[in-house]
């Protein structure tokens, strides 16, 4: 019983740590709770979909999908075109999603192919692939748009006549999904339509886990050799996982940007990957195990910290700059610590299973790469 409690504590160490940090930081920041609650409700709608996009690759044993920025780029291309064509409101959001779907699927296919050539180091490869594609994206958006791809709205072009401006005002689609259905509870505005989309996505993931493809992904995630032996097309399954993830990241980015209302053409996507991954890890997920509750808890905790830490830093030490650096440090640090912990755990599991094979006293748990997605 005691050891069970200890295990529970270890498994949720990251979540507990963050709850503790935030519990200390909120009183220091002296921010009104109602404001915080509204901020978190808004940010949950803005970010949850993006974080959900990370779940499938984790299930397929490919780790955290750093290549999700590819999807984000696809979404941004869709939004730029929609803004140019002046399609407004919810139909603009839908059209952006439709245009960017083939782009995201194509990029996802490329990403899957590349990751299949780098088995065992998917994360670092996906990470570099994101940077590489950023170069291609810039080539497209900064040079081809307005030169090869006709852009009719001069307002979104740079003054030299081609290339998209650093900031694109998404006035046409701004919050059109969020404002579709707003319910006010106790003075807090809830973007119900966005929540419904997110809930539908959760339902899809739960359903998907039970399908043939979903089961195949879990099998591939647990042991590639066994999966191959039982006739599962491993490479194809992995590509599917990445393609779906990229597509979801693309829709997630569209939801994210319609809430913000401005597109930071050359930076918006860069932070998407890191923030989503940090949020998922803070929610208690690991490289091999991530669930829907992890997503929700992670978004809430990460963004509470996001909102509170600069003010808390300012009140505590008198420097908002310091709070900002602290926030960055936590985002990077949490990813580093999670990766280290996962690596240790995997080694301990391998050692334990080897011990068990020798007939040692250790429990025969086997390498615990459980794909509870």
């Amino acid at each position: 019983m005691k050891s069970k409690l200890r295990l529970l504590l270890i498994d949720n160490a990251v979540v507990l740590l963050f709850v503790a940090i935030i519990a200390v930081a909120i009183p220091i920041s002296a921010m009104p709770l109602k404001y915080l609650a509204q901020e978190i409700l808004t940010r949950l709608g803005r970010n949850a979909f993006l974080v959900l996009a990370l779940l499938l690759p984790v299930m397929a044993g490919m780790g955290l999908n750093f290549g999700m920025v590819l999807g984000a780029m696809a979404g941004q291309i869709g939004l730029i075109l929609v803004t140019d064509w002046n399609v407004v409101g919810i139909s603009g959001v839908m059209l952006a999603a439709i245009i960017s779907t083939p782009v995201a699927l194509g990029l996802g296919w490329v990403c899957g192919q590349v990751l299949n050539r780098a088995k065992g180091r998917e994360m670092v490869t996906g990470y570099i692939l994101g940077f590489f594609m950023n170069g291609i994206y810039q080539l497209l958006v900064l040079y081809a748009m307005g030169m090869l791809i006709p852009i009719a709205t001069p307002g979104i072009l740079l003054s030299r006549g081609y290339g998209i401006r650093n900031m694109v005002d998404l006035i046409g689609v701004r919050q059109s999904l969020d404002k579709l259905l707003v319910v006010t509870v106790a003075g807090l505005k809830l973007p119900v339509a966005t929540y419904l989309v997110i809930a539908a996505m959760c339902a899809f993931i739960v359903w998907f886990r039970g399908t043939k493809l979903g089961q195949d992904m879990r099998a591939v995630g647990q042991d590639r050799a066994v999966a191959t032996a039982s006739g599962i097309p491993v490479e194809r399954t992995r590509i599917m996982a990445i393609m779906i993830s990229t597509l979801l990241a693309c829709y997630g980015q569209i939801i994210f940007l319609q809430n913000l209302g401005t597109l930071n053409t050359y930076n918006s996507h860069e932070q998407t990957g890191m923030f989503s991954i940090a949020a998922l890890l803070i929610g208690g997920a690991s490289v091999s195990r991530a669930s829907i509750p992890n997503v929700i808890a992670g978004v809430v905790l990460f963004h509470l910290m996001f909102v509170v830490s600069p003010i808390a830093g300012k009140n505590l030490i008198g420097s908002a700059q310091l709070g900002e650096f602290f926030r960055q440090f936590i985002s990077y640090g949490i990813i580093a610590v999670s990766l280290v912990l996962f690596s240790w755990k995997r080694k301990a599991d391998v050692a334990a299973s080897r011990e068990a094979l020798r007939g040692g006293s250790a429990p025969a748990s086997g390498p615990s790469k459980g794909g509870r997605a």
Partner: protein
Amino acid sequence: MERIREFVSDFGLPRIIIALFLVLLFVAAPFVGVSVASSLSNTIARFGMNGIMVLAMVPMIHSGCGLNFGLPLGVIAGLLGATISIEMGLVGAAGFAAAAALALAFAALLGYGYGKLLNRVKGDEMMIATYVGFSSITLMSIGWIVLPYQSPTMVWGFEGEGLRTTISVEAFWDKILNDFLAVRIGERFVFPTGMILAFCGAALAVWFFLHLKSGSAMTAAGSNPAYARASGIDVDRMRTGSVVFSTMLGALGIVVYQQSFGFIQLYEGPFSMTFPSVAAILIGGASVTKASIANVFLGTFLFQGILTMTPSVINSVLKTDLSEVIRIIVSNGMILYALTRKTKVAK
């Protein structure tokens, strides 16, 4: 024909394309009104500036730790050394020597801890190194604000707090290596003898080390850990040693970089050092598991050559600034190529 094909597959197609591209840039330069002499001079200067940081990849690749994405740790040690030297008010050669010595000392400390960490995460070094590097940069950003520096050249004036984002070393040891025995040919070409000598010296040190007994043991630990252990080599110790060595080279590298550049870049500065260095050694022919001094020289020259030539030549041809995009695509494409390449079995 067969031999050509073999050469191509040995040398790698991307590398050949990049080399040809660079040659093409140099050939095209005079026709678009870009001076070859000053381009060459710039290329050599950048070659010397970045060389030692590229060299910092070698020991870790040899011991099997992969590409050193943790270079920021070395860079931070170098920044600490440089700022403390300025804080002490040392100028000229003494200042530079103090900066380098302090940098090496800090790097040894940081590298030791970092090596111990990497020993416990074998197989996942690269991703973890990236994030350890990033988190230490942001942690140090807090440090640059909080640490009790006093020197008026470094601390923000009136209202600000902490150190400036860029600190000029002009009054201290600006270009001290570059100008040492520098050879000037014609109006536009300068050969920074001292800096190139420093680079060659560091390269020679690495070469000697790799051919000493402990160096060979390190390479053995990297290429076949089980075999190395069976022959009585302490694999973990070798790996820690290589990480300390790499980190120290990184620290020395950034100090040499700063004296040539003329500025110390704090806060987010170290972010931009890692990828170019990783890309350079890969362009030179290294892989995730193999690297030589020749790879460092060739790679640094090719990569820095392209960085120098593209803004001037491509921009005059296309009348638009494509250089940044080319830099992103070439450097990350190269890393991607190395990560996805199936390692060929030795002949």
